[in-house]
């Protein structure tokens, strides 16, 4: 069951949160980082981020990594979280390859 879960498509928010947490980071840091990563395209709302973090914690894809100097809670990706990301990358590559092949759009 966990295996199928790891292979199911991630939401954009979950994918970018997981990527951010290859380094320990607190909530606000994740929001900023996702904004930078996506070149200002993805703005995570704090409510959405909070829900996503809790779900990822429940799944064991991220863990709470203690508190930073400013007493903000920090999170970090786990091994199963990394696995989920690599499945997602494979999936995205397939999507991308098929899209390019059929439409001829190259970028």
């Amino acid at each position: 069951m966990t295996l199928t879960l790891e292979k199911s498509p991630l939401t954009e928010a979950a994918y970018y949160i997981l990527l951010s947490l290859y380094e320990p980071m607190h909530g606000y840091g994740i929001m900023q980082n996702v904004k930078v990563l996506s070149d200002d395209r993805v703005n995570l709302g704090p409510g959405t981020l909070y829900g996503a973090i809790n779900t990822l914690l429940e799944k064991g894809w991220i863990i709470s990594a203690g508190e930073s100097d400013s007493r903000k809670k920090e999170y970090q990706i786990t091994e199963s979280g990394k696995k989920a990301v690599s499945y997602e990358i494979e999936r995205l590559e397939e999507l991308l390859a098929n899209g390019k092949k059929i439409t001829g759009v190259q970028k």
Partner: protein
Amino acid sequence: MWRWIYDYEKEEKWLNEMAAKGLSLYSFFFGKYTFEETEPGKYIYQIELLENLPTSPDSVAYLRFLEDTGVVCVASVFRWVYLRKEAASGPFDLYTDIDSKIKRLSTMKNLWFTFVWLEFIIAAANLAMVMYGWIFIHQMAWLNLGCVVLLVVLGLLLLKLGLKPARKIKSLKREKLICE
């Protein structure tokens, strides 16, 4: 300033219009709004329905998390909280994907519909009392009927409030079939 707004979206809009004029809400207690003078447009407001009372550990954790992102809770009434954020630090949307929007709307829908059921059950009980003549004193019967009318009116108002998020959930779910 005293006001009574039952639709939170209208209330939110009004608070943001006030903030744009330089009057920023800093406390609220059952219809009594207190504003502070700030630079026009300094804050953006949002009203949120928590899943638990603001004093519960879950809500405390959530509000603390929000604070870390620059969102401050200025007031609360039961599970409703009034949140604000400085406009200079960018747009203020608590929810940015369809799933979490649906979840939030469901919380609201459930709240209103619980009250709707409650109202109608009490109204029906009142009506039953009158019909079966449990109460023989005429004045009391009128009182009961008055209650029924009042409860039904209130129930319909709540139903209207509950149907709004219900409709939105429906359209979001349709959108979700093709978008994230």
